């Protein structure tokens, strides 16, 4: 069975982000990690492999060269193959274009199971997974918290939806997005890290393969970022003074009503 995992390398929470003076671009401190939710996806793929044995795991990203490090992390965890579709000639953050490219790759290779993260920590868009599934015309289930493989070619998944928890049986090929709680991602062992250093990472030029799902060139995006800005800063905190906790609580409630007008 072939399992494909989409991973994105994203800026670490602590990374400094500077907005250019013309507000048109961002400069991100070189501190990148594998997207938080994608680690659950990689871990789950490895668990499927451990359970079923005859499984090959491919990890794929659409990213510039810096993401090689993220791919190596996933190999060190236990993925078999890593592919980087080079994004350096693209300017797009458009999820539709990214999904077109990733779906084209998935279609070309053919996979039984595709896993990705619930959402990327940088754009917080939660679009790419379901979009890829739509292009491939396969079912998806969002935010899964449990996966078990059934024979033949079916999986049972649990996910949270509005109002409760749902268990579904899904015919493969299918795509699932990983929610926290699906598993505990493993920390790579030294042997895994050594293997990852030696593993060759395939680099693909998107221009070199067919993109049956629509245009991917720079002009084809339907969205354009006009500008970036810092969030409005809050005035510095007002510490509520008072002799006793009761005095403080009293003053706070008064301020919330009269000044902040939120009561």
């Amino acid at each position, binding site marked *: 069975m072939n399992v494909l995992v989409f991973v994105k390398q994203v800026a670490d*929470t602590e990374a400094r*982000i500077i*907005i250019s003076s013309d507000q048109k671009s961002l400069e991100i401190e070189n501190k990148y990690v594998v997207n*938080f939710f994608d680690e659950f996806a990689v871990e789950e793929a490895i668990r499927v492999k451990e359970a079923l044995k005859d499984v090959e795991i491919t990890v794929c990203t659409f990213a510039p060269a810096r993401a090689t490090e993220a791919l190596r992390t996933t190999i060190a965890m236990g993925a078999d193959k890593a592919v980087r579709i080079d994004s350096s000639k693209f300017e797009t953050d*458009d*999820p*539709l274009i990214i*999904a077109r490219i990733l779906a084209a790759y998935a279609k070309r290779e053919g996979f039984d199971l595709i896993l990705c993260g619930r959402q990327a*920590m*940088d754009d*917080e*868009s*939660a*679009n*790419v997974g*379901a*979009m890829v599934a*739509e292009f491939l015309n*396969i079912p*998806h*289930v*969002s*935010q899964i918290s449990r996966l078990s493989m059934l024979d033949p070619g079916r999986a049972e998944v649990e996910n949270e*939806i*509005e*109002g*409760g928890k749902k*268990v*579904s049986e*899904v*015919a493969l090929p299918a795509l699932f997005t990983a929610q*926290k*709680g699906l598993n505990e991602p493993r920390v790579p062992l030294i042997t895994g890290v050594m293997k990852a250093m030696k593993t060759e990472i395939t680099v693909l030029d998107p221009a070199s393969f067919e993109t049956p799902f*629509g245009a991917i060139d720079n002009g084809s*995006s*339907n*969205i*354009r970022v*006009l*500008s*970036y*800005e*810092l*969030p409005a800063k*809050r005035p510095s*905190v*007002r*510490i509520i003074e008072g002799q006793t*906790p*009761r005095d*403080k*609580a*009293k003053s*706070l*409630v008064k301020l*919330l*009503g009269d000044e*902040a007008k*939120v*009561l």
Partner: protein
Amino acid sequence: MSKDVLVFIECKDSMPRKASLELLSAGRQIAAKFSSGLSAVLIGSGVKRAADVVNAYSDKTIVVDDEALTDYGWDTTSSVLQDIVKKYGPMIVLGTSSMTGKDLFPRLAVRFEAAMISDAVGFDFEGDGLKIKKPLYGGKVISWIAPGTDAMLMATFRPNSFAVSEPGQKGEIIEEQANIRKNPGIKVISFKKGESKKVDLQEADFIICGGRGMKAAEHFSLLEDIGDIMGGRVGASRTVVDSKWRDYDDQIGKSGKTVSPKLYIGCGISGALHHIMGMDTSKVIVAINKDPNAPIFQYADYGIVDDLFTVLPALKDELKESREES
């Protein structure tokens, strides 16, 4: 080209969610700017009652009421919504960035090659066009994004991004027949209804959130009491969830939920960036922490430096009193 606006309405207990009414209020401003029409679409089972509420905010309320739509599924719901969008031809389709919205809109956006902008918090006009405000990197940066002029825009917004306007003149209600397409690959085995909380965490106007400083699961009853008085909800930091004092459903932050209530009160929370990312778009932030150097005070509007176990009982009484007065 006319830029009609269509709002996808979500219901809870057969009534429209507040977040959906917020979208209608925003949609009204957009439609006014473009001199276009505002429609709402209700898809589900037993949703006709909701139409009478929605009606007061939209020109047209399209109702697709069918028993086969009782339980949400992206396959069935998107097939109906797709037909409605085709038939009515809006250029702007708005939804909530709820679990449903996040599951549904991307699939639909592909079918219409739409400009998809999700998890937005506001909009503005630039020249003749619309631009959408969307936080990135956990709120560290705000971006303004414009959809292409000829493209259909599909945008989902966080609850509490807009105020609900006063209801207006009643619009028209149109009932449509559904041609529901189910995906044969998915079979629902079971659905376990969660405990029906009064309001959803992401929709709540008031959130009181507990951190490790709460010390134990049983102390959260203090927060529950205050939440009840205020008609709000209790949230938790990850540490609290990891300690199994509260469910993961209640977690606020980078790896939990993003909330923006009118009033957020953090109790015994240090203010790690991972937590801040989930709540810093709240209108007013209050922190109660005994450590004056706790980072959360850098993000708060009001702070109390004291032991939360002495402050909270007093706060509960004061809030109760102020509620009773108003």
